[in-house]
């Protein structure tokens, strides 16, 4: 399973890919996390990839991904051609306008108001990535909740653990409602 997170620097893109990778390792799976960003630390284009597998990983920088999580319009437009046909697209619905013409065939498309939830419910836009993480993992069931929680607790700034976990749970709930529908 190859998952790509894209957005601007400062949206927690790299951290999201790191947390998923770390959770997979905690689950005893193999994982590789890879990232790229511009030379600016904030506001530049940013991506974080993670590969999760039960077997040896040969491909270090796969060209195409199974899942694309996009938090910005330019990120969506740049990377949507690399989503595999039949793959999964998850976007922040207030930040990304999707365009079917650009998209590969037979993809599953999900649009959630992650940033809006982070802002309105928690007063912190910056934790939109946690809403996304919870949502994505519940949808795709890649890592156990226990590992995900552990990885979040270990890697978010001290004092923000509860906030981040709550945001992640919000994403999980959203995904559960989605599948119940």
């Amino acid at each position: 399973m190859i998952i790509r997170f894209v957005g601007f620097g400062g949206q927690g893109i790299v951290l999201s890919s790191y947390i998923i990778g770390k959770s997979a390792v905690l689950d005893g799976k193999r994982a590789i996390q890879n990232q790229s960003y511009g030379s600016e630390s904030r506001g530049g284009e940013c991506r974080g990839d993670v590969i999760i597998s039960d077997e040896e990983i040969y491909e270090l920088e796969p060209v195409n991904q199974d899942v694309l999580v996009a938090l910005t319009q330019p990120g969506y437009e740049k990377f949507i051609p690399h989503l595999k046909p039949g793959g999964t697209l998850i976007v922040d619905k207030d930040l990304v306008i999707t365009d079917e013409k650009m998209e590969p065939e037979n993809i599953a498309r999900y649009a959630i108001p992650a940033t809006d939830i982070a802002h309105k419910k928690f007063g912190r836009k910056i934790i939109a990535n946690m809403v996304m993480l919870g949502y994505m993992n519940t949808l795709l069931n890649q890592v156990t909740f226990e590992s995900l929680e552990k990885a979040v607790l270990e890697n978010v700034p001290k004092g923000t653990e509860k906030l981040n976990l709550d945001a992640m749970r919000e994403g999980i709930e959203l995904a559960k409602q989605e599948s119940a529908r």
Partner: protein
Amino acid sequence: MGFNEDRKRYLAGLEDKTYFMLGDEACAYGAIFAGCDFFAGYPITPASEVAERLAEELPKAGGLCIQMEDELASMAAIVGASWTGGRSMTATSGPGFSLMQENIGYAIMTETPCVLVDVQRSGPSTGQATKPAQGDMMQARWGTHGDHNIIALSPNSAQECFDMMQECFNLADTYRTPVILLMDGEIGHIRESVTMPALSSIKPAARKMAKPGEDVFGGEELVPGITHYGMGQNVHVTGSTHKANGMRDVTTPHVHEALVKRIYNKIDDNREKIIRVEKDISQNGQSKIGVIAYGATARPSLGAVRAARDDGKNIDFMRLITIWPFARKQVAEFAKNLDMILVPEMNLGQISREIERFVNCKVVSVPKIGGVPHTVEEIYDAITEVAS
């Protein structure tokens, strides 16, 4: 210095656990487990994370970490530190590695144990600063002027970045020579699981010490015993041609010849003890095609070989773990029954030409530059093109 109580106390908090970290970070922790006492470096992408992690962690183990004004100075400082008896290292990438060549030569000529990490990025010059490459293979071998030998290892996972730091320091101390961990930006910048071993399993090689009054730069053995500063031996260390007692003699032909040949031979004559390769031979033993790769490229290469086998093709695979001294005997043996060897590497064929020198079969370079590693498919296609 070394494995004192401070270090053991610090490592006790890390040992026997699995982590998820960058190849660069694994290299830094590997160095601390290897007993590194001193790090000097200068920031450079994609090697800065080695320095950053050591700056954070090495002092906790009682080691010293400093940032110098440039890479010339970093290399100089680790040589100075080594003569006090400490295990010393630096880390850099292409542009900095170029600057270090001067004092790598000095370390070779003065037989100073030390470790350099080169996290290779795309060159020449500033090139693609953030993109990986394997373009320094020959620079590692011949970057500094004059006849010499060098030891260089190439890891292909974050775990190996960790493990090989011990091997590098042990080789440096055993052969009294600089040793290069020839990483590539790909391995340095991927995060993977890294398991740190139990402290009790660490077995650092000890430097052979010269007896008081004994020559430090020659004698019967290929690797003379060393002495350290402050031991009252008035040791004279010079990068100029010197006699066994360390004193300069830059005009007598046989003095130079004896010194340089011994420094060359101490690695050449021990090549079988130093060299490590890893082979994955097709089960029926009837392969006519082989693939040789190293570092990051070895991963998609092995993937492609296995995919080709799944298609019923017999393909042999070998990974070079030791790059220098070159595994010429192992490569020749590997090639014995082959018609062709494919060599994928992230340069325009540096090691493929080296392989060509030691085999009778055809060698096909599968180069890739531009900052993106080979995909499994690209190597698979190269294999199927010749194995139809």
